[in-house]
């Protein structure tokens, strides 16, 4: 069992082990809901440019961990560092502004808006137009709208959504809505992308497309991707590092091959005699 030692500061185990400095680093997170310990002393280091999968049986604490990373839950103890900065106390929208992009489990797009508008909302923190600019729509506002629509169109092209740019997202299929969700996260121009069960409920073709998009985003933007995923085939295919959680604890960290052969992991998934 490989288990990272608790750390003193925002410097990582990976750096100590001679690897690159981590972009995102969670340290000794403790999260309880009443008597239930959702996370017990969980640490996680995401290195530059890696695809880092978090797996584990149901109730292992995967979503709790993601919610601590994106700011929905505040851990009772432990710290979250992003690019060396302590972000443990930041509210979710401040973390988004800092460069944490996130996609959601299930459908969390804005159903009444078009695909392009959904993606444009992702640029919220990069745009400057305020309330009065919005009411008057003067030249500078128009120029900003022009520039960011062009950027949104780049994402639309990347995700192959051209035909659907003006389609109301509420009318789209599940897989397409997930793609819009991903586009919106890309519009944050994140320095790390966190994805909660991106493959859930997709057919094999959609899974293939999405896996390709994830790899392309990592390669094109040179950012790490953290994903919680149940589809082991996808996890083993695309991830560089896998962290395995069970009952709120990290039971293994390593490459897909290492994790697959780890006895604690096999026991967690299949049970012990």
């Amino acid at each position, binding site marked *: 069992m490989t288990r990272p030692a608790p750390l003193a500061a925002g410097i990582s185990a990976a750096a100590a082990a001679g690897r690159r400095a981590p972009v995102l680093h969670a340290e000794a997170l403790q999260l309880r809901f009443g008597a239930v310990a959702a996370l017990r002393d969980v640490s996680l280091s995401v290195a530059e440019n890696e695809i880092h999968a978090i797996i584990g049986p149901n109730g292992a604490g995967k979503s709790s961990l993601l919610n601590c990373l994106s700011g929905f839950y505040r851990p009772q103890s432990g710290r979250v560092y992003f690019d060396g900065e302590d972000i443990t106390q930041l*509210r979710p929208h401040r973390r*988004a502004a800092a460069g944490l992009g996130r996609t959601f489990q299930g459908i969390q797009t804005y159903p009444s808006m078009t695909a392009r508008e959904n993606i444009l909302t992702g640029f919220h923190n990069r745009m400057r137009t305020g309330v009065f600019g*919005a*009411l008057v729509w003067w030249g500078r506002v128009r*120029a900003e709208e022009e520039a960011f629509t062009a950027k949104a169109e780049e994402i639309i092209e990347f995700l192959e959504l051209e035909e659907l740019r003006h389609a109301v997202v509420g009318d789209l299929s599940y897989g397409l809505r997930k793609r819009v969700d991903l586009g919106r996260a890309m519009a944050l121009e994140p320095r790390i992308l966190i994805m909660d069960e991106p493959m859930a409920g997709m057919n094999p073709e959609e899974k293939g497309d999405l896996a390709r998009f994830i790899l392309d985003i990592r390669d094109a933007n040179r950012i790490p991707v953290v994903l919680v995923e149940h589809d082991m085939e996808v996890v083993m295919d695309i991830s560089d590092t896998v962290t395995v959680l069970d009952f709120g604890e990290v039971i293994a960290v390593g490459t897909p091959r290492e994790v697959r052969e780890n006895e604690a992991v096999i026991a967690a998934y299949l049970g012990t005699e």
Partner: protein
Amino acid sequence: MLPTGVLFETYSAEAGLLKTARARVAVAALVLALLAAPLATGAYLQGVATHMFITLIAVYGLHVTVGMAGQINIAQSAFVGVGAFATARLSEFGLPFFIVVPVAALVTGAVSVVFALPAARVKGFYLALTTFAAQVLFPIIVLGLPTSWLGGLVGLAVEPLTVAGRPMNTPTHMYYFTLALTLIASYAAFNLHRSRFGRALKAVRDNDVAAEVMGIDVLRHKIMAFFVGSMFAGVAGSCMAWVLQFVTVESFTLFTSVWYLGMLIVGGAYSPIGAILGVAFITLVQEGLHELGTAILRSGAQEAGGAIFAATNIALGACILIALIFEPRGLAHRWQVLKTGLQLWPFPHR
């Protein structure tokens, strides 16, 4: 949906409000008709139209708070009242209207923020109660303040509106003045929809959890939704003050607030077109029944005429019910369906 052959070279041209020649001609014709209308109508109809314009500005504001941001507000009439009282006080200093109107709007916005600070933290039923409190507190506060401040039970006289040194004291004058402000308010309301701020409000309405994670400060935008919605109310209040030339708390009741909401529901809360259609439709029904009642009274059938007047509110309530049951997206959606149908005619499919 756009007709074939309409192409754009820039994204901002694509975001234009009037994208086709036909739309530009139609809106120009409507504005010209509104400008020419006083030539063919008397003081009564001009008064009705003026009242309709003022209502429309207030309902635009409600459309921002309720329709765009999804924050229920049953105190819009109180906010119109704040704008009216602010105008009454400001007019005493002899300030020109182009200063009074924006200041009244900002004052109203600021007052609404006081109520929005707690309101933005609660949802649904509790939010409704919080805004209800704003409506109930409005007369209590106005009457409770020293009479020298807001006139107490008597109210405040408003210095007549002057434009370029000339007093605007006929119904025709007020018709043109409120028409001008309505056109400006319409432009602003449509602008909101295509802007960063408007998208953020709609994101908060559609999915506040996702909006927060996507970097939108949800609490701040809920408060701003009240602020902007109330600025429209403030402008409506200014107009109201100058039209009535006297403001008292009795003009700004819960009943009116509920009617503003009713108009928005009948018209469709999700687009400014809904506000226009809702206000026009309800006003026409109201006035139509009123005319009918008066005509019957004149013909001597007292009881039947009285029944028509009594039935007015029942008929309008029925309109809201019918809208909620059969077309929750309001007349605006019907209008959209009709427009698309006409564009596709005679081929029924895209």
